[in-house]
């Protein structure tokens, strides 16, 4: 379906998403199944439309986006397996609600990157703002710089790897999944977490409510070695493990545990 239709009616893109007032610029250089998009003078909406047009309609599997200029919400809502490289920095809400893509950002990202991501890999060469991987459901998020506060708030799956330091309340209300933080973390680590695991190699300012040191097992070593190998991060440092103390945890009294399994 074409994103452009005549008249003043609502228009829909290839995935049935409404596009009220914008046309696909169709300005990328396509070479076989790869394409290059020069985004410097395009609006956020046009960049995202162009990405969807390339990936869903032109059969492109690999896109390089030049000059993203720290715009917000770029690369959001991509629901197919593909490879995207952003040459530069992205703003807030980068690569949110994605399912499948392998994204490489050579700069940094702002707040709330990879929010509600379902699967895929996002690698960020620079720093990230607060709330990275908020409500993450699956996939791997790798940040090579530092991250802000509340990393992986409400995380429900997947893995967040941070090579630098992390701010306060990392893993706040985390429900599942893993965080691997190589640097120091701020106060309130794992505050009110329900489940999941946080590995920290640096200094922990303070633990949050009901976050306790966990017992190290071979599975932990295997996971960390595998993640470092897959993402080519060198040899892993030594980590401490933190889990939920389950003192705040009384859901079994309220609902059957089998219901919890499908959470």
């Amino acid at each position, binding site marked *: 379906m074409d994103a452009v239709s005549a008249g003043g009616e609502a228009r829909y893109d290839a995935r049935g998403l409404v596009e009220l007032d914008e046309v696909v610029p169709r300005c990328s250089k396509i070479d076989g199944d790869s394409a290059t998009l020069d985004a410097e003078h395009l609006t956020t909406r046009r960049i995202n439309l162009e990405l969807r047009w390339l990936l869903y309609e032109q059969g492109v599997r690999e896109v390089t986006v030049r000059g993203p200029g*720290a715009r917000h919400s770029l690369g959001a809502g991509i629901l197919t397996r593909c490879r995207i490289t952003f040459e530069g920095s992205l703003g807030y809400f980068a690569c949110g609600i994605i399912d499948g893509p392998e994204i490489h950002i050579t700069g940094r990202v702002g707040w709330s990157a990879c929010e509600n991501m379902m699967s895929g890999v996002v690698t960020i060469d620079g720093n990230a703002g607060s709330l990275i991987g908020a409500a993450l459901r699956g996939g791997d998020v790798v940040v090579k710089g530092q991250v802000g506060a509340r990393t992986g708030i409400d995380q429900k799956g997947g893995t967040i790897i941070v090579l630098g330091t992390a701010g306060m309340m990392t893993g706040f209300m985390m429900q599942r999944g893993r965080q691997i933080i190589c640097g120091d973390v701020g106060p309130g680590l794992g505050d009110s977490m329900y489940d999941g695991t946080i590995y920290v190699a640096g200094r922990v300012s303070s633990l949050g409510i009901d976050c306790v040191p966990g017992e190290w097992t071979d599975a932990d070593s295997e996971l960390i070695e595998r993640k470092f190998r897959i993402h080519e991060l060198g040899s892993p440092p030594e980590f401490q493990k933190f889990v939920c103390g389950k003192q705040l945890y009384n859901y079994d009294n309220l609902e059957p545990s089998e219901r919890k399994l499908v959470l």
Partner: protein
Amino acid sequence: MCGIAGIIYRNGNGAHRIGRDITSMLQAMKHRGPDSSGFALYHSPGRDLVIRIKLADANTPRDLEFGENLRRHRREIATRLRTAGATIHTIDDVNEYTLSVTLSYDSDIKRLADHVESVPDAEVLSAGHALEIVKDLGDARTVSAGYHLDDYFGSHGIGHVRMATESDVDISNAHPYWAYPFSDVAVVHNGQLTNYHQWRRRLERSGHRFASECDSEIIAVYLAEKLQAGSSLEDAMRESLEDLDGVFTYICVSEDALGMAKDELAAKPLVLYEGEDMVALASEEMAIRAVLDREIETYDPYEGQVMVWTR
């Protein structure tokens, strides 16, 4: 939401196009606040004092007496400045309802400001040997064009785009706030302060006046009181983290320094670029990129951090 921005050139040179820089930064963050835009700009400090005065606000009724009132109040202000002991050099009508007065005065600035504000509707927007505050309704480009900021040269400055959450949309409630009655200090703020009324009552008891109902004004007056008591800017800002409740990130500027403070919950964003020749900071990286055309590395300060740079 609101957007804040600041820039300071580190070579001590006051010949940078600071007005144009802050305009570009604020315009890039227009989506964070469409209600009003404001600037606190610093030119090379001179011996004379510059005070900027507002004669009417955006919502003052433009009735039949409006023009006559403006003229009468303008005359009264000149008289009262002289009564306070100032020697007026120039009175510049920046626009219909804003005056910029250059004068010689070496006594208490509070006395001078109180004399001006005894004229109905008059408000001192800023007073200082280097500081000038410009604020009005509309986006940054509109305000900048209306006040000719494109050609404003200086060493550092801050700006604010406002999405009003705590008080009215008018010029009095727009940022930046001058740190009444302390010369050359101004503040922009993004956030909400929850112990505003306690602090306002406390500061009013010590003789400070408040020009607006906006919680952010507390920060400016609070810092002014600390500075008057002899604290350094950095110490005063550090103490504010303990004394002020709520969520906030603010930028404070003085004649030769620019500082940022972030609350202990890190709930409001700030992106920071520290270069050899300049430091730029803003709520969003897009704003910093609007004034730097090269690839840059930025980071977010952590919770409870206070940082100060000098020009």
